[in-house]
C-alpha cells in the first residue's frame, strides 16, 4: 500500500495501525454505484467476484486534522495519488498536503474491482466529491453545536470551521474529530463546492511520490524482502500449448542453497539470490509435448477471419442497404494489426509470505488487488479473508497487470516451502505470459453521396471488440458487428492470452475508422478536417477539432497535399480527443519520422492539468510504438520476440514535438484521462503518411519494410 504521509514519505502501515487510526475520528464510507462502471465485472472477473460490496472507499479525518483516503485503486504512474487527494481537499477545504492516500491494500481498503478504464477520477471521483462534502457537512454541523453558531454562518478555511462574522469563533477539523468515533455512510445529501469556486481542483501540484522515485526509495513488489525470502524461477514451456512431460531437477538440487518445488507440472527452483536461482533453472532438464498450434504472425489474420466465432451486432441505425443504394461512391478497405505487448518496465512481480496463523500476505504489482485476493485464496483453498494483497507502487500496467498470475505462483510456492517467496518474471516470461492486445481484422464498407456526406457505414470488427467504434459522425445508416474482443474470447480464437491494453480495442477501431474517413475525404476531394466537420453533428467534437486545428495551424487542402499532415478524432472514457500530426517519410528506407503531434482534449473539469497533460504525452509516446514498430511475432505457440533486442519500445529519438491543449469545459464533470489521447495515434500517423505520399497503409505497425513495400506498389 502507499501512504505518502505528508506528501513524499512512503511507508507501510498494518491493520493495527488502521484500527488505531480509525478508532477515533470521522469515518465516511462511500460507494460507486454499480451502474457507474467501477464495479462492473471486468474481463473474466465475473466469476471471481465476491459479494457485491455496499461501499468501496473510506475517508477518515483524525485528531491531527489529517485526512486519509482508503481506496482500492493503485498507483502505476497515472497520478491518481495526486488527483484523488485534490478532490477530497477541495470539498473539505483543507490544504492538499493534509491528505494521505492508502491504496490497493485488501486489509485496509474496501473492495474495488481494479484500476483500469480511466475510471478513477471519472467514476470514483464524483462519489469522492460527495463523500468529502458529506464529511465537511458533518464537521460543520458539529462545529455549529460546539461554537453555538448557526451552520449558515459558518465557513471552512484550511480545515478550520470559522464564523463568518466573528473570527474568534473557530474550531479545527482535528479538534472536532479527535477523541470521538463518528461513522457515517455517504448519503449524497451534502451540497458540493461549485466548480466556479474551486481553488484546488484545476491546479497542478507536485507529485507526492517524486522524491521517493528519484532516490530509489519508492518500493515496488519486487523490492519487498521479508526475512528468509527466496527467489523462485519456474520451469516454463517453450511454446503455448506445450505440456511438461518430465523434469529432471537432480543437478539443480545439488547446488548449495537451492530448493526445488514440484507440484504436478508446476516446477520451480528457489534460491536466496535471483541470479543463482537463474543458474539453477538452467540445470533443470525438462521435456515438453509439442505445441499443437500452427498459427503465426502472418497466417493469424486469415485464421481470425475463418475461425468459427459468432458475430454480434454492437450498434446499428437506419438501413445500410438503402444507404448504399443512395451512395454515389462506395469505399471499402480491410485493416489489419498484430498483437502488441504491454511491456511495463516492471515485469510481473510478487512476494508472498505465510504467517504462523496461516494468513498469506502477497505484495503484488497488480492493477486488481481485490479480484487477485479471491484468486490467490482459491488457489490455496483459503477464505479470501485469509489472504491480504498489498499493492506497492506499480511499475507500469497499461492493462497488463489486470492479470496477476505471478502472485498466485508466489503464494503457492511460499506455502510449499514455508518461507517467503519472491517471483519476479524475467523479460522473457513477461513476453510469453503477457495478455497481448489482440490482433484484429477490421473491414469497413462505406458510401458517400453527391453532397460528400457519408450515407452508409458497414463495419465488421474481428478481434478488437467494440470500444471506440461507436459512430459519432452523422451517418444515417450504419451497422457495426464484432467477432471476439479483448475479453471473453472462446478457446481457439487466439494462440495465447489476450487482454485489455490501454484503451482496449479502441486503438485498432479508431485507427480503422479514422483511416477510412480520411480515404473518403480524399475520394470526395475535400480537406480531411473540412470533410469531418461536414459529417459531424456533434458540437462538442467540432469544438475540439477546431481548437486542435488552430493550435496545429491547419490550413485546408485536400489530401494528399504532400505536407505530411494527419488528423484523427476519438472518444474514449467520456473524453473527446483530436490528434494532429506531421510526418516525414523516407522513400528509400520506408522509415516514418513523426515530426510533430498536437493533441486537444475535452475531458470536462480537469482535476490536475499537469497530470492530465502527462497522460496525454505518455499516450502519444506509447502510441508511436504500436503504430511504427510493435508487433509480437510468434510461430507454433512460440513467442519469437522475447526481449527488447527484437521488440522495440518507443525511444527518445522517436520523440516528436508534442503540444497539448486541454479545453475548458466547466459544465461537464471530470471524464477519463489515462487513455483517450492514445486511441487516435494509429490514424493520425497513417493519415499523415497518406498525405505525405498518397499511399494508404492498412496494416499496423507501419514498419519501414511495410511502408517501403506499399510505396513501391502504389507510389
Amino acid at each position, binding site marked *: 500500500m502507499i501512504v505518502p504521509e505528508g506528501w513524499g514519505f512512503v511507508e507501510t502501515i498494518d491493520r493495527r495501525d488502521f484500527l488505531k487510526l480509525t478508532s477515533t475520528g470521522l469515518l465516511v464510507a462511500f460507494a460507486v454505484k454499480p451502474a457507474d462502471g467501477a464495479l462492473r465485472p471486468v474481463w473474466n472477473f465475473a466469476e471471481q467476484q465476491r459479494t457485491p460490496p455496499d461501499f468501496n472507499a473510506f475517508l477518515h479525518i483524525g485528531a491531527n486534522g489529517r485526512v486519509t483516503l482508503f481506496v482500492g485503486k493503485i498507483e502505476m504512474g497515472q497520478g491518481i495519488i495526486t488527483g484523488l487527494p485534490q478532490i477530497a481537499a477541495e470539498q473539505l477545504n483543507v490544504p492538499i498536503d493534509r491528505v494521505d492516500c492508502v491504496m490497493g491494500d485488501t486489509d485496509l481498503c474496501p473492495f474495488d474491482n481494479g484500476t483500469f478504464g480511466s475510471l478513477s477520477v471519472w467514476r470514483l471521483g464524483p462519489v469522492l466529491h460527495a463523500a468529502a462534502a458529506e464529511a465537511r457537512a458533518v464537521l460543520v454541523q458539529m462545529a455549529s453545536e460546539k461554537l453555538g453558531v448557526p451552520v449558515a454562518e459558518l465557513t471552512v478555511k484550511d480545515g478550520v470551521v470559522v464564523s463568518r462574522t466573528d473570527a474568534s469563533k473557530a474550531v479545527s477539523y482535528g479538534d472536532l474529530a479527535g477523541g470521538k468515533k463518528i461513522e457515517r455512510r455517504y448519503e449524497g445529501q451534502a451540497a458540493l463546492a461549485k466548480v466556479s469556486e474551486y481553488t484546488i481542483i484545476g491546479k497542478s501540484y507536485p507529485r507526492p511520490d517524486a522524491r521517493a522515485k528519484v532516490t530509489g526509495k519508492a*518500493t515496488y513488489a519486487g523490492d519487498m524482502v521479508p526475512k528468509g525470502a527466496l527467489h523462485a524461477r519456474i520451469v516454463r514451456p517453450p511454446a503455448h500449448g506445450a505440456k511438461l512431460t518430465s523434469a529432471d531437477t537432480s543437478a539443480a538440487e545439488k547446488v548449495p542453497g537451492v530448493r526445488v518445488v514440484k507440484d504436478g507440472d508446476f516446477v520451480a527452483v528457489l534460491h536466496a539470490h535471483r541470479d543463482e536461482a537463474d543458474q539453477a533453472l538452467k540445470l533443470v532438464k525438462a521435456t515438453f509435448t509439442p505445441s499443437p498450434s500452427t498459427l503465426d504472425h502472418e497466417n493469424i489474420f486469415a485464421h481470425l477471419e475463418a475461425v468459427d466465432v459468432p458475430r454480434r451486432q454492437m450498434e446499428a441505425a437506419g438501413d445500410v442497404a438503402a444507404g448504399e443504394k443512395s451512395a454515389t461512391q462506395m469505399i471499402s478497405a480491410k485493416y489489419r494489426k498484430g498483437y502488441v505487448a504491454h511491456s511495463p*518496465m516492471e515485469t510481473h512481480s510478487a512476494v508472498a509470505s505465510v504467517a504462523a496463523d496461516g494468513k498469506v500476505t502477497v505484495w503484488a504489482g497488480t492493477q486488481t488487488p481485490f479480484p487477485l485476493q479471491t484468486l490467490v485464496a482459491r488457489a490455496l483453498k483459503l477464505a479470501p479473508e485469509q489472504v491480504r494483497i498489498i499493492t506497492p507502487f506499480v511499475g507500469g500496467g497499461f492493462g497488463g497487470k489486470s492479470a496477476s498470475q505471478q502472485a498466485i505462483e508466489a503464494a503457492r510456492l511460499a506455502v510449499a516451502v514455508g518461507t517467503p517467496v519472491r517471483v519476479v518474471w524475467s523479460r522473457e516470461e513477461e513476453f510469453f505470459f503477457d495478455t497481448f492486445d489482440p490482433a484484429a481484422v477490421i473491414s469497413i464498407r462505406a458510401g458517400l453521396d453527391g453532397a460528400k456526406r457519408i450515407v452508409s457505414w458497414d463495419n465488421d470488427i474481428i478481434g478488437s471488440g467494440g470500444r471506440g467504434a461507436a459512430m459519432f459522425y452523422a451517418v444515417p445508416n450504419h451497422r457495426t458487428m464484432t467477432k471476439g474482443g479483448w475479453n471473453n474470447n472462446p478457446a481457439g480464437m487466439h494462440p495465447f492470452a489476450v487482454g485489455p491494453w490501454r484503451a482496449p480495442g479502441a486503438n485498432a477501431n479508431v485507427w480503422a475508422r479514422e483511416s477510412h474517413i480520411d480515404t473518403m475525404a480524399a475520394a470526395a476531394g475535400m480537406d480531411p478536417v473540412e470533410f469531418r466537420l461536414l459529417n459531424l453533428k456533434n458540437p462538442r467534437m467540432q469544438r475540439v477539432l477546431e481548437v486542435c486545428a488552430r493550435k496545429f495551424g491547419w490550413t485546408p487542402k485536400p489530401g494528399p497535399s504532400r505536407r505530411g499532415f494527419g488528423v484523427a478524432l476519438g472518444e474514449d472514457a467520456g473524453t473527446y480527443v483530436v490528434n494532429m500530426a506531421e510526418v516525414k517519410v523516407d522513400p528509400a528506407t520506408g522509415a516514418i519520422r513523426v515530426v510533430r503531434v498536437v493533441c486537444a482534449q475535452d475531458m470536462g473539469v480537469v482535476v490536475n492539468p499537469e497530470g492530465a497533460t502527462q497522460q496525454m504525452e505518455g499516450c502519444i509516446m506509447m502510441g508511436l510504438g504500436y503504430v511504427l514498430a510493435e508487433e509480437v511475432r510468434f510461430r507454433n505457440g512460440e513467442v519469437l520476440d522475447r526481449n527488447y533486442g527484437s521488440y522495440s519500445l518507443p*525511444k527518445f529519438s522517436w520523440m516528436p514535438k508534442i503540444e497539448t491543449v486541454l479545453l475548458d469545459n466547466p459544465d461537464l464533470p471530470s471524464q477519463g484521462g489515462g487513455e483517450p489521447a492514445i486511441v487516435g495515434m494509429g490514424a493520425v500517423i497513417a493519415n499523415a503518411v497518406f498525405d505525405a505520399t498518397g499511399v494508404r497503409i492498412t496494416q499496423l505497425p507501419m514498419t519501414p519494410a511495410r511502408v517501403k513495400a506499399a510505396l513501391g506498389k502504389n507510389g
Partner: protein
Amino acid sequence: MKPIAFTLNGVARTVTVDENRDLLWVLRDDLGYTGTKFGCGASFCGACTVLLDGREVRSCVTPMSRVAGRKVVTVEGLAQGDKLSPVQEAFVEHVGFQCGFCTSGMVIGATALLEANPKPTRAQIIQGLERHLCRCGAHLRVVDAVESAARKMAGGAK
C-alpha cells in the same frame, strides 16, 4: 566464492561472492540496495544502470570481477543526506517520471551524461539517453529535466 572489495556510494565494502555473479543481484539481494531495478536482464532497457568509476554501466551484465577495486554509485548514493543531486531535483521539478520504474536508471544515466558532457545540446541528451527505455512515455519531461539540470549545474538560470 571470493572476497571482492569495492566502494559503494562512497563506503568501502567487501563481499564474498562468486565473481561471475552480476552486480545487479549482489546490490539487490546481498546488500539490500533495491533502488537499482531489474527490467530486462540483457542490457537493453537501462533500468539497472549504475555508475562504475563515474561511467554508466548496466549492472545486470556487469560481473563482480569487473567491480573489484572500483567505485560504484547507485541511485541511493546521489543525494547528500536530504539534499537531492541537481539531476534528481530536476527530475522532481519537471516530473521526469510516471511509474518511476525506469527512473533510477534514467537519473543515473543523466548524471553520467552530464558528467561526460556538462553542456549537452538537446540532441545530445536524446542520443545519450537513447538506450534507456520508458514505457509510460515520460520522455519529453526527462529531456526537459536533463536540460534544466545542465543549466543549473553550469550556474545559469533555470
